[in-house]
Protein backbone atom coordinates (compact mmCIF):
# COMPACT_ATOMS: atom_id res chain seq x y z
CA UNK A 1 0.00 0.00 0.00
CA UNK A 2 1.10 3.51 -0.74
CA UNK A 3 1.37 5.21 2.63
CA UNK A 4 2.31 8.64 1.32
CA UNK A 5 -0.24 11.42 1.48
CA UNK A 6 -2.29 11.79 -1.67
CA UNK A 7 -2.19 14.68 -4.09
CA UNK A 8 -4.87 17.32 -4.29
CA UNK A 9 -6.10 17.85 -7.83
CA UNK A 10 -8.24 20.83 -8.83
CA UNK A 11 -10.70 20.44 -11.68
CA UNK A 12 -12.08 23.79 -12.74
CA UNK A 13 -15.18 22.98 -14.80
CA UNK A 14 -16.88 26.33 -14.30
CA UNK A 15 -18.71 27.55 -17.38
CA UNK A 16 -18.75 24.11 -18.98
CA UNK A 17 -22.13 22.61 -19.84
CA UNK A 18 -23.20 19.02 -19.21
CA UNK A 19 -21.65 16.51 -19.88
CA UNK A 20 -18.40 18.47 -19.71
CA UNK A 21 -17.93 18.61 -15.92
CA UNK A 22 -18.21 14.84 -15.39
CA UNK A 23 -15.95 14.27 -18.40
CA UNK A 24 -13.35 16.52 -16.77
CA UNK A 25 -13.72 14.63 -13.48
CA UNK A 26 -13.19 11.32 -15.28
CA UNK A 27 -10.08 12.65 -17.04
CA UNK A 28 -8.58 13.73 -13.70
CA UNK A 29 -9.66 10.45 -12.11
CA UNK A 30 -7.83 8.42 -14.74
CA UNK A 31 -4.51 9.92 -13.67
CA UNK A 32 -5.31 9.86 -9.96
CA UNK A 33 -4.31 7.33 -7.33
CA UNK A 34 -6.08 6.03 -4.27
CA UNK A 35 -5.74 8.59 -1.53
CA UNK A 36 -5.75 11.57 -3.89
CA UNK A 37 -8.33 14.29 -3.45
CA UNK A 38 -10.09 15.75 -6.46
CA UNK A 39 -11.72 19.12 -5.90
CA UNK A 40 -14.17 20.09 -8.59
CA UNK A 41 -15.64 23.50 -9.30
CA UNK A 42 -18.69 23.53 -11.54
CA UNK A 43 -21.55 25.80 -12.50
CA UNK A 44 -23.72 23.39 -14.53
CA UNK A 45 -27.00 22.95 -12.59
CA UNK A 46 -26.94 19.19 -13.21
CA UNK A 47 -23.56 18.76 -11.61
CA UNK A 48 -24.83 18.09 -8.10
CA UNK A 49 -26.98 15.04 -8.92
CA UNK A 50 -24.50 13.95 -11.59
CA UNK A 51 -21.51 13.83 -9.28
CA UNK A 52 -23.59 11.89 -6.73
CA UNK A 53 -24.48 9.40 -9.47
CA UNK A 54 -20.83 9.13 -10.49
CA UNK A 55 -19.79 8.50 -6.89
CA UNK A 56 -22.44 5.82 -6.54
CA UNK A 57 -21.34 4.21 -9.77
CA UNK A 58 -17.61 4.25 -9.12
CA UNK A 59 -17.59 3.70 -5.35
CA UNK A 60 -15.27 6.61 -4.58
CA UNK A 61 -15.92 8.86 -1.59
CA UNK A 62 -17.67 12.20 -1.68
CA UNK A 63 -16.14 14.17 1.17
CA UNK A 64 -17.87 17.45 0.45
CA UNK A 65 -20.55 18.80 -1.83
CA UNK A 66 -21.52 22.39 -1.25
CA UNK A 67 -23.11 25.24 -3.11
CA UNK A 68 -21.29 28.52 -3.04
CA UNK A 69 -22.72 31.74 -4.41
CA UNK A 70 -20.91 31.37 -7.73
CA UNK A 71 -20.22 27.64 -8.01
CA UNK A 72 -20.77 24.10 -6.79
CA UNK A 73 -17.76 22.56 -5.05
CA UNK A 74 -17.24 18.84 -4.72
CA UNK A 75 -14.34 17.16 -2.97
CA UNK A 76 -13.81 13.55 -3.90
CA UNK A 77 -11.48 11.12 -2.20
CA UNK A 78 -10.17 8.58 -4.65
CA UNK A 79 -10.58 5.16 -3.06
CA UNK A 80 -11.83 2.84 -5.79
CA UNK A 81 -8.86 2.62 -8.16
CA UNK A 82 -7.79 -0.92 -8.86
Amino acid at each position, binding site marked *: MDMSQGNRILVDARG*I*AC*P*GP*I*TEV*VKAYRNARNGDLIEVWATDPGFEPDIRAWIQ*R*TGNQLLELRKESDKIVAVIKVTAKK
Partner: protein
Amino acid sequence: MSSGKDKISMIVFSGTEDRLIPVGVISQAATALGYEVNIFFTGWAMFKLLKNPTPPVWPKEFEQFVPKLQEGMARIKAPTWLDMLREAKKMGAKVYVCSMMASAAGLKKEDFDPSLVDDVVGVTTFLEMAKGGQVLFI
Protein backbone atom coordinates in the same frame (compact mmCIF):
# COMPACT_ATOMS: atom_id res chain seq x y z
CA MET B 1 -20.36 0.19 -8.77
CA SER B 2 -19.10 -0.15 -12.28
CA SER B 3 -19.05 -3.69 -13.51
CA GLY B 4 -17.33 -2.69 -16.74
CA LYS B 5 -20.15 -4.38 -18.63
CA ASP B 6 -22.47 -1.44 -19.24
CA LYS B 7 -23.13 -0.88 -22.87
CA ILE B 8 -25.19 1.53 -24.90
CA SER B 9 -25.71 1.43 -28.64
CA MET B 10 -27.40 4.07 -30.76
CA ILE B 11 -29.02 3.85 -34.14
CA VAL B 12 -28.84 7.39 -35.47
CA PHE B 13 -31.31 7.83 -38.28
CA SER B 14 -32.86 11.29 -38.42
CA GLY B 15 -29.82 13.52 -38.87
CA THR B 16 -31.56 16.75 -37.90
CA GLU B 17 -29.55 18.94 -35.55
CA ASP B 18 -32.04 18.65 -32.69
CA ARG B 19 -31.49 14.90 -32.62
CA LEU B 20 -27.75 14.96 -33.20
CA ILE B 21 -27.24 17.01 -30.04
CA PRO B 22 -28.36 14.16 -27.72
CA VAL B 23 -26.21 11.74 -29.73
CA GLY B 24 -23.21 13.87 -28.76
CA VAL B 25 -24.27 14.35 -25.15
CA ILE B 26 -25.11 10.71 -24.46
CA SER B 27 -22.05 9.29 -26.21
CA GLN B 28 -19.68 11.61 -24.40
CA ALA B 29 -21.24 11.01 -20.99
CA ALA B 30 -21.52 7.24 -21.46
CA THR B 31 -17.92 6.78 -22.59
CA ALA B 32 -16.72 8.98 -19.72
CA LEU B 33 -18.59 6.68 -17.34
CA GLY B 34 -16.89 3.68 -18.88
CA TYR B 35 -19.77 2.34 -20.96
CA GLU B 36 -19.01 0.56 -24.17
CA VAL B 37 -20.56 2.85 -26.80
CA ASN B 38 -21.45 1.82 -30.35
CA ILE B 39 -23.07 4.31 -32.69
CA PHE B 40 -24.57 3.16 -35.93
CA PHE B 41 -25.32 5.95 -38.41
CA THR B 42 -27.89 5.20 -41.05
CA GLY B 43 -30.72 7.00 -42.85
CA TRP B 44 -30.27 10.74 -43.28
CA ALA B 45 -27.83 10.95 -40.39
CA MET B 46 -25.23 9.01 -42.36
CA PHE B 47 -24.59 12.03 -44.61
CA LYS B 48 -23.34 14.02 -41.61
CA LEU B 49 -20.24 11.82 -41.49
CA LEU B 50 -19.14 12.39 -45.08
CA LYS B 51 -15.88 14.16 -45.86
CA ASN B 52 -18.23 16.79 -47.31
CA PRO B 53 -21.17 16.59 -44.90
CA THR B 54 -24.63 17.89 -45.64
CA PRO B 55 -25.48 21.29 -44.10
CA PRO B 56 -27.35 21.46 -40.76
CA VAL B 57 -31.08 20.83 -41.01
CA TRP B 58 -33.73 21.53 -38.36
CA PRO B 59 -37.25 20.15 -38.34
CA LYS B 60 -39.67 22.62 -39.90
CA GLU B 61 -41.97 22.71 -36.88
CA PHE B 62 -39.19 23.96 -34.59
CA GLU B 63 -37.45 26.31 -37.00
CA GLN B 64 -38.75 29.45 -35.26
CA PHE B 65 -37.07 28.39 -31.99
CA VAL B 66 -33.69 27.65 -33.53
CA PRO B 67 -32.05 31.09 -33.20
CA LYS B 68 -33.04 31.24 -29.52
CA LEU B 69 -31.70 27.74 -28.92
CA GLN B 70 -28.44 28.48 -30.69
CA GLU B 71 -28.07 31.64 -28.65
CA GLY B 72 -28.62 29.63 -25.47
CA MET B 73 -26.14 26.94 -26.51
CA ALA B 74 -23.53 29.63 -27.16
CA ARG B 75 -24.26 31.26 -23.80
CA ILE B 76 -23.65 28.04 -21.86
CA LYS B 77 -20.66 27.33 -24.11
CA ALA B 78 -22.07 23.95 -25.10
CA PRO B 79 -19.81 22.19 -27.57
CA THR B 80 -21.25 21.13 -30.93
CA TRP B 81 -22.60 17.59 -31.19
CA LEU B 82 -19.63 16.78 -33.43
CA ASP B 83 -17.15 18.01 -30.81
CA MET B 84 -18.91 15.84 -28.24
CA LEU B 85 -18.80 12.86 -30.59
CA ARG B 86 -15.07 13.41 -31.14
CA GLU B 87 -14.56 13.59 -27.38
CA ALA B 88 -16.48 10.31 -27.01
CA LYS B 89 -14.36 8.70 -29.72
CA LYS B 90 -11.18 9.75 -27.91
CA MET B 91 -12.51 7.84 -24.92
CA GLY B 92 -13.34 4.74 -26.94
CA ALA B 93 -16.76 5.18 -28.58
CA LYS B 94 -17.05 3.45 -31.93
CA VAL B 95 -18.87 4.93 -34.91
CA TYR B 96 -20.20 2.81 -37.74
CA VAL B 97 -22.02 3.50 -40.97
CA CYS B 98 -24.76 1.23 -42.27
CA SER B 99 -23.47 -0.62 -45.31
CA MET B 100 -26.92 -0.97 -46.84
CA MET B 101 -27.69 2.75 -46.77
CA ALA B 102 -24.16 3.58 -47.90
CA SER B 103 -24.56 1.31 -50.93
CA ALA B 104 -28.01 2.70 -51.68
CA ALA B 105 -26.53 6.20 -51.72
CA GLY B 106 -23.59 5.09 -53.83
CA LEU B 107 -21.11 5.85 -51.04
CA LYS B 108 -17.94 3.98 -50.22
CA LYS B 109 -15.91 3.86 -47.04
CA GLU B 110 -13.46 6.38 -48.55
CA ASP B 111 -16.26 8.94 -48.85
CA PHE B 112 -16.63 9.12 -45.06
CA ASP B 113 -14.45 11.16 -42.73
CA PRO B 114 -11.98 8.60 -41.38
CA SER B 115 -11.52 10.63 -38.19
CA LEU B 116 -15.19 9.97 -37.43
CA VAL B 117 -16.10 6.62 -38.97
CA ASP B 118 -14.49 3.44 -37.67
CA ASP B 119 -16.05 1.17 -40.24
CA VAL B 120 -18.91 0.52 -42.65
CA VAL B 121 -20.77 -2.51 -41.34
CA GLY B 122 -23.95 -4.48 -41.85
CA VAL B 123 -26.80 -4.60 -39.39
CA THR B 124 -25.79 -8.08 -38.27
CA THR B 125 -22.51 -6.71 -36.98
CA PHE B 126 -24.37 -3.93 -35.21
CA LEU B 127 -26.88 -6.27 -33.59
CA GLU B 128 -24.09 -8.47 -32.34
CA MET B 129 -22.29 -5.47 -30.87
CA ALA B 130 -25.46 -4.16 -29.28
CA LYS B 131 -26.51 -7.50 -27.84
CA GLY B 132 -27.20 -7.40 -24.12
CA GLY B 133 -26.96 -3.62 -23.83
CA GLN B 134 -29.31 -0.67 -24.14
CA VAL B 135 -30.27 0.47 -27.63
CA LEU B 136 -31.54 3.92 -28.60
CA PHE B 137 -33.11 4.81 -31.92
CA ILE B 138 -32.57 8.48 -32.57
